[in-house]
């Protein structure tokens, strides 16, 4: 028996009116407008000054360094974190112990303090030697201040700290992949290393990417802490600037504008990254499947599918 041939008339009920919502929205918009209005009209904000400094040399150079620090630290953090996570999950007690200790130590101190420690590294070890211990044989040595420059200290502090947090994220991602995947890969004769690389980690990415995106966005702002060792990023330069011209508020707003701008860009980027790793799990797949079939046929017939 199929459905009946004539549908009854569609329901045309009068919807519930949510008056409370409309009133609340109205009040909030009004208050927001008042706030914005007072802010814009405030003489201490000095919109002209903000505009002047927004694209100034000092600020732009600071932004560039901030971005460099963010990228390099996140790379160190992500790679280090993955290594640490795999170590932590290993059956080898040495590896898993070392990893545990590292994570415990680097999560146990504030990143602010770690930055100060790396920045003052030369006090602890004035010279770095490459040689054999206890027998006074030295192949090469270097002045710590030169080897661990402010920039190197910054990326070490930020990167190594991030690796400890990233390790827990990656570990959570790896654990989230069901055991059956491991069994299937192993039953096909794939080695544990191959299984991790080709099967487990790609699937773990789905769980790892959103919090990692968060970490990156957070790192963008955490770089501001290296101002304490005069790293030459945005906040360092802004601080130097307003300690000379006393235009504290406008310059802080300049910093805010830049941080918010890049955070927005990163958020959009994360959205696309999640889409890529969510491949195979969502809708719109039929069309994509056809595209892939086309590409394969072309490859088979010796035509280079190229980019479409």
């Amino acid at each position: 028996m199929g459905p009946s041939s004539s549908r009854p008339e569609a329901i045309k009920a009068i919807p519930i009116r949510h008056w409370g919502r409309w009133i609340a929205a109205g009040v909030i918009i009004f208050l927001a407008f008042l706030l914005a209005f007072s802010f814009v009209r405030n003489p201490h904000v000095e919109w002209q000054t903000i505009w002047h400094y927004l694209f100034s040399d000092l600020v732009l150079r600071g932004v560039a360094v901030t971005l460099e620090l963010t990228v390099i630290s996140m790379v160190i953090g992500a790679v280090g974190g993955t290594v640490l996570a795999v170590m932590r999950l290993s059956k080898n007690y040495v590896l898993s112990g070392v990893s545990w200790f590292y994570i415990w130590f680097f999560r146990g101190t504030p990143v602010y303090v770690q930055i100060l420690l790396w920045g003052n590294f030369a006090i602890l070890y004035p010279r770095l030697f490459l040689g054999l211990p206890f027998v006074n044989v030295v192949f090469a040595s270097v002045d710590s201040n030169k080897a661990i420059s402010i920039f190197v200290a910054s990326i070490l502090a930020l990167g190594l700290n991030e690796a400890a947090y990233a390790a827990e994220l990656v570990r959570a991602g790896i654990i989230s992949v069901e055991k059956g995947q491991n069994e299937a890969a192993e039953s096909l004769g794939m080695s544990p290393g191959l299984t991790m690389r080709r099967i487990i980690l790609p699937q773990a990415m789905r769980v790892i990417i959103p919090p990692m995106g968060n970490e990156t966005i957070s790192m963008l702002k955490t770089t501001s802490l290296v101002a304490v060792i005069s790293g030459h990023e945005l906040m360092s330069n802004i601080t130097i600037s307003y300690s000379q011209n006393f235009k504290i508020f406008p310059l802080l707003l300049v910093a805010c504008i830049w941080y918010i701008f890049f955070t927005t860009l990163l958020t959009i980027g994360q959205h696309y990254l999640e889409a890529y790793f969510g491949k195979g799990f969502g809708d719109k797949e039929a069309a994509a499947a056809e595209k892939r079939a086309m590409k394969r046929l072309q490859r088979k017939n010796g035509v280079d599918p190229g980019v479409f």
Partner: protein
Amino acid sequence: MVKVEQVWKSFGKLDVLKGVDFVVYPKQTFVLLGPSGGGKSTLLRCINHLEAIDAGRLWVDGELMGYRQKGTVLHEMKARDVSRQRAKIGMVFQRFNLFPHMTAIENVMEAPIRVLRVKRQQAEAEAEQLLTQVGLGEKLDVYPAQLSGGQQQRVAIARALAMKPKLMLFDEPTSALDPELVGEVLDVMKELAREGMTMVVVTHEIGFAKEVADGVALMDGGVIVEQGPPNQCLMNPKEERTKAFLSKVLA
């Protein structure tokens, strides 16, 4: 092809296998039946060393699985050698365990390319052929999430076959499927048996056992209660437990 001798296996304090003996000859289809918890799946997973046995010996294709024997001493096998042994055995799981981030054809190609070092084009061609053989020639570039259970299981079978195994293990391959989809998977398995593949199948499908099996065994409580050819074991069972099990299943 498979020789199991006095195999014992425990998980903690629980003894799951308590001295199992049987032999599967090449090209035979051997079916393991029995109530849940009887140890059938565990036994299957011991055959390809996904679980290590605690006592006894297990040989596949003349090779001791998972251990190397030097004189009278047993050495644990290195992971690399275990992987090599497993590559000769194909396994199909109850929950399919397809790789969800790869298309059907990529699932089938992956192991030959990475483990057997087959060239990509050749692996792709062979994968296409295998998938067509199991009736999924139109679904090569589809992700597992878009396939029905029966289709997924058939991809899983193709994936196991891509490694050109000498032995195929099936762990309740149709238990997670809707009744309408069971038939298509059983058909593929029957075809495999006809072509002479050595198979050990754990299943509840008595009909399949009657039609295709060369040997049948009933497992309960970690031991084989009764074994023999299907027309003897299933039609005229000798043991009480076998009769009890069959009457429940065939009711």
